[in-house]
């Protein structure tokens, strides 16, 4: 009854869509397909964050247990004895080894990778570019244990000549002195890491250089620039931030590389002042070689060291972003 009277009376004005509703309608978010997709993408985004937070929380919790039981200074101690009572362990050697081997790898790999990328984009005959790029892609796909085996069986024996030479001419610096012993040292590890990260840095740099705008290169050419001058004026400045990003990708791999380092390095909990003397260790190598036989506390200690590696990687990435952002005004993005 109520209903009929309402219907016969002046009908209520049709609800005016609010501004927000109009916007939503314009976006089309009310269609079922859009709603499902919105839900899916938002849900997976949230899920990812939750998983990340859970992992971080778990690791931090386990690490805090280990660190609270540590009788030595976790950051500065030169030993890793989780079986002792009380346990003594510290990450100083691992941090040193990880950073040093990665620096060696970057110093060797970045200039070579940039040179290869420039060769492929600006010097190589067109019909060679594809095949060479393909071979480099293949190098990136080789599993790291294969690099490790190659390093241990072929690279290490061949390093003695280089080590002898370095010791003879640069031994006085202290960094390159060699007291004999197998060349399973930080320098060998660094060289192997350099070979491993070369393909990724090369490939990303090549993409960046290829996108250097043609019209800027022509501007340099029209001023009478030689090919190298074109690269210096128009290609390198444009590709600078891309090369930094590429290097960071490589550095990430070098910092976290496990099997290749574990296969080549002869580890010890000492810091060698010479890059040629065997010994030292890296975070990932230490975890890999100790994890399977570690006690509960030992595992927690290893997790704590992994967290430190994570923090180092974050710092490095943050630094790289700052470098890229600092000269944004002059970047090729304004072209």
């Amino acid at each position, binding site marked *: 009854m109520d209903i009929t009277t309402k219907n016969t009376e002046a009908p209520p004005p049709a609800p005016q869509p609010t501004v927000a509703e109009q916007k939503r309608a314009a976006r089309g978010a009310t269609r079922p397909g859009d709603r499902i997709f919105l839900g899916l993408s938002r849900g997976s985004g949230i899920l990812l964050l939750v998983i990340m937070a859970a992992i971080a929380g778990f690791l931090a919790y386990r690490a805090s247990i280990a660190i609270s039981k540590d009788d030595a200074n976790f950051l500065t101690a030169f030993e890793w004895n989780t079986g002792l009572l009380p346990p003594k362990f510290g990450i100083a050697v691992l941090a040193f080894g990880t950073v040093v081997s990665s620096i060696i790898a970057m110093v060797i790999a970045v200039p070579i990778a940039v040179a290869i990328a420039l060769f492929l984009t600006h010097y190589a005959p067109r019909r060679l570019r594809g095949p060479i790029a393909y071979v480099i892609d293949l190098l990136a796909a080789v599993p790291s244990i294969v690099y490790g085996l190659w390093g241990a069986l072929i690279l290490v024996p061949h390093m003695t000549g280089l080590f002898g030479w370095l010791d003879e001419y640069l031994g006085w610096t202290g960094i390159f002195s060699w007291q004999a012993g197998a060349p399973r040292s930080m320098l060998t590890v660094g060289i192997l890491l350099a070979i491993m990260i070369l393909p990724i840095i090369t490939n990303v740099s090549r993409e960046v250089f290829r996108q250097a705008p043609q019209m800027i290169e022509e501007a340099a050419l029209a*001023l009478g620039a030689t090919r190298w001058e074109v690269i210096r004026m128009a290609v390198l400045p444009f590709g600078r931030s891309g090369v930094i990003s590429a290097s960071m990708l490589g550095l990430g791999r070098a910092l976290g590389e496990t099997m290749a380092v574990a296969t080549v390095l002869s580890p010890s909990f000492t810091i060698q002042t010479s890059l040629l003397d065997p010994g030292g260790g890296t975070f990932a190598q230490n975890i890999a070689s100790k994890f399977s036989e570690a006690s509960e506390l030992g595992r927690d200690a290893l997790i704590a060291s992994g967290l430190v590696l994570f923090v180092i990687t974050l710092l490095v990435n943050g630094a790289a972003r700052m470098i890229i952002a600092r000269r944004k005004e*002059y970047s090729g993005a304004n072209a």
Partner: protein
Amino acid sequence: MAKRIDVSGLTAYYGSHKAIEDISMTVEPRSVTAFIGPSGCGKSTFLRTLNRMHEVTAGGRVEGKVLLDDEDLYGQGIDPVSVRREVGMVFQRPNPFPTMSIFDNVAAGLRLNGNYKKSELGDIVEKSLKGANLWNEVKDRLNKPGSGLSGGQQQRLCIARAIAVEPNVLLMDEPCSALDPISTLAIEDLIGELKERFTIVIVTHNMQQAARVSDRTAFFNLSAVGQPGKLIEIDETERIFSNPSVQATEDYISGRFG
């Protein structure tokens, strides 16, 4: 030091494709010559053969002769790099070096060519920017990036960069086609001033522009798509636009074609 350009029997190829065929013309020093013609007729290609930029494209090569006064640009042992230092170029879209400041953009060519003292460099940069009618607009921000300027200012910056090295010839490939009418007017006025010092060749799609800025006009055409472009006629601009000797030219400029 403006120089005369003397082209005889020039044919240019991209790989096996013949882009322009058998072009001969003379461009007098301290004059403006405009190239007009439909798209694809090879006028830009021809322009680029005049400073050997044509060779930058894969498979680019030429037959024939281009004399700059008495020097053959395609002679034995002539380095294309040194040709481009003598024959400057301004492009269709303004292309200042985005990673360089305004000052460094203008100084870029000078730094390639040799060692200048800092004060010398400053003087030449100022002179060039004044020559490009840009000095008053940028003198307070020479250290800011060139890419922060407006399109018209960027194009004048590119002209300043080109004239800083005192080329003998200045080539302009549709220098105003990406600019608004006011910036276009500024560039056209500038061309009028620059022809006191340089030999200028300009490609344009805008026939009023050709009529306004040039002393002589060359009309290019092609018989069909895929066929090489040819020079139809070159004459005093006034004559080309009032009483051309070839029917195709008249059809083109009166809009009955292309």
